[in-house]
């Protein structure tokens, strides 16, 4: 098996963009870009993913002159990362074509950069007058459709602005930040121990993935060995979260195409899983079960039996439903060739998770950058090339099948032992990193301790932070009525993006 690696590289400020070009030539992807504040300077980080390796490139800029060369010319995906750095840190990416605020709203006071250390995160912000410069399109017959932030269904808030000619979408502009809760700043006030609870609430539907990614990142800062059994139980939670979310989403996509039968059936199966979670571990979504140093609950022998028999039931019913999905021409009419994200676009926008794997991508952290026990498991990655709503459904169907197989393996081979160890407080001036494949895709955390060993910065990159941008492209030339289908098939998190 290939060995995965994490490398840190320090470069001078003027070499920052040059390195990006070299990385691009070696077909690396920009996975995240963020800033942090040290005593005397600002640090800018760019994280590149290249096959099984992550390279984190760091540069610094003085506080008196907070600027760095923008990477947007090389990597499209840098666009929003850098707008975010600019909005929340006030560091200027030189050469960035679009420095409208992102997440920060136009009515925030101009000089409010909440992630800076001299800003008291608990103090309320005032409001000023301001206007957001929306992209305009003019011409005969162009109709503008603003949607949100309060949507028609039971969904999170966000704003979509369509330009349409007749029924056809010619441009979509997203605007987010409505659910911005200051999570990254909150991590700094809460400290290490409570961080896992907060991480579990970055995006409620991926509570396991986020809590796990946070814990792995913090644990990587010290030489601690997590008990084997705890790691296996963590993997069990991660796979169960994957199955229940995929079930719900496949159902919801069918519902958006008005095929309510499958919606009810899939939701029924999902509910069964959630109830088992509640019964075995006391929480339907498995919140707060992953803690620093291990897990807080045991999986009993009876529990294992219950999960295994539930899996058999689930597998049988699921396959019946998949046959019905597959054999329904009116459903096919809606999902085939709808919302296509081409392989080239997927690559350019650096999408992750099932969105990537439905457009020819092969990246899955469980294989490329496995945390224990995934290096013991032969995870198969489903890949489709069509890039439409249908392909994204099939990736999820295959992932459910694969997760069922993985859970059986985990339960049959689970080692015995402790559930948790005491996780020591991280040493001063250290950093930790993790990449976890949640159900939505690659979830990245990067944590840093200050000179006293306190939490100085916690960077969160939900899969949605990159996938949202690609949705703007995928809906082009589709009809407005197909937007819910496209959106649901991406199912990005608003809260995970806005932080």
């Amino acid at each position: 098996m290939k060995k995965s690696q994490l490398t840190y590289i320090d470069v001078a400020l003027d070499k920052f963009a040059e390195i990006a070009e070299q990385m691009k030539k070696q077909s690396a992807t920009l996975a995240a870009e963020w800033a942090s504040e040290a005593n005397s300077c600002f640090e800018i980080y760019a994280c590149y993913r290249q096959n099984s390796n992550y390279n984190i490139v760091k540069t610094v800029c003085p506080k008196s002159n907070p600027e760095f060369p923008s990477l947007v010319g090389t990597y499209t995906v840098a666009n929003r990362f850098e707008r975010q750095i600019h909005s929340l840190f006030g560091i200027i990416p030189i050469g960035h074509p679009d420095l409208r605020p992102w997440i920060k709203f136009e009515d925030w006071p101009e000089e409010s950069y909440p992630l800076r250390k001299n800003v008291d995160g608990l103090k309320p912000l005032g409001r000023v007058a301001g206007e957001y410069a929306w992209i305009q399109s003019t011409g005969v017959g162009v109709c503008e459709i603003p949607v949100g932030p309060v949507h028609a269904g039971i969904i999170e808030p966000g704003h979509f602005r369509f330009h349409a000619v007749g029924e056809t979408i010619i441009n979509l502009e997203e605007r987010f930040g409505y659910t911005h809760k200051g999570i990254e700043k909150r991590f700094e006030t809460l400290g290490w121990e409570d961080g896992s609870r907060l991480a579990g609430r970055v995006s409620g539907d991926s509570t396991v993935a986020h809590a796990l990614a946070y814990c792995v990142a913090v644990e990587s800062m010290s030489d601690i060995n997590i008990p084997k059994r705890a790691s296996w139980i963590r993997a069990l939670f991660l796979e169960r979260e994957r199955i229940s979310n995929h079930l719900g989403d496949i159902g919801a996509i069918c519902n958006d195409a008005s095929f309510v039968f499958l919606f009810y059936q899939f939701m029924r199966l999902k509910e069964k899983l959630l109830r088992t979670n509640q019964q075995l571990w006391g929480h339907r979504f498995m919140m707060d079960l992953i803690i620093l140093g291990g897990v807080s609950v045991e999986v009993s022998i009876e529990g294992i039996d219950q999960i295994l028999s539930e899996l058999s039931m689930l597998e049988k019913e699921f396959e019946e439903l998949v046959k019905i999905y597959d054999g329904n021409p009116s459903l096919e009419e809606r999902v085939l060739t709808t919302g296509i994200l081409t392989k080239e676009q997927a690559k350019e926008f650096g999408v992750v998770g099932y969105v990537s794997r439905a457009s020819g991508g092969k990246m899955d952290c469980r294989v490329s950058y496995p945390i224990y026990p995934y290096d013991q498991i032969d995870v198969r990655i489903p890949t489709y090339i069509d890039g439409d709503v249908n392909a994204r459904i099939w990736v999820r169907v295959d992932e459910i099948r694969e997760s069922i197989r993985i859970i059986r393996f985990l339960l049959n081979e689970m080692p015995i032992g402790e559930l948790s160890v005491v996780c020591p407080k991280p040493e001063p001036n250290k950093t930790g990193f993790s990449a976890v494949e949640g159900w939505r895709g690659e979830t990245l955390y990067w944590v840093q301790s200050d000179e006293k060993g306190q939490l100085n910065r916690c960077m969160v990159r939900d899969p949605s932070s990159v996938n949202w941008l690609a949705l703007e492209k995928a809906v082009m030339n589709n009809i407005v009525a197909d937007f819910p289908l496209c959106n649901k098939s991406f199912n990005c998190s608003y809260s995970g993006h806005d932080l």
Partner: protein
Amino acid sequence: MIRTLFKIFRTGIVTENVIGQDADNIEVIGQKLSKLIKKRFKGSLRIRHIDAGSCNGCELEIHALNNPIYDIERYGIHFTASPRFADLLLVTGPVSRNMEIALKRTYAATATPKVVVAVGDCGCNGGIFGESYATLGGIDKVIPVDVIIKGCPPTPAALLNGILQAIAN
């Protein structure tokens, strides 16, 4: 088609009486709800859900109310797309600073009399996010709240119970 019909037949009716942690009073909650809705809302209670900045955990459970097991529509409760049609606002929180204006506008757009239910620990008091530059805390910091439903997130049974309380008062 035959597969679909066969599956429907085989599945049967899965809708159940809601049984929660305190089964004694929740089991009858449905009948109580139906009666009240018939009496006070002519058989139809319209709910508008507003996410004022939640982590989407509460949304998952509100969604679950519509699954065939809880099937909230059997009591005459419908989720509506517009606040103009709503009798009750189901608001999840904490209220983010960036949603404050939208929340106030949605509240103003709802016809009176209106009932506001704050959902989840964050909706009650800001939860783990507390009050900061980006969050204002619980829903009652921004609009008047009639009933709170605690939990992170509250279970579907707790949600039903809270809705019952809200319309019983």
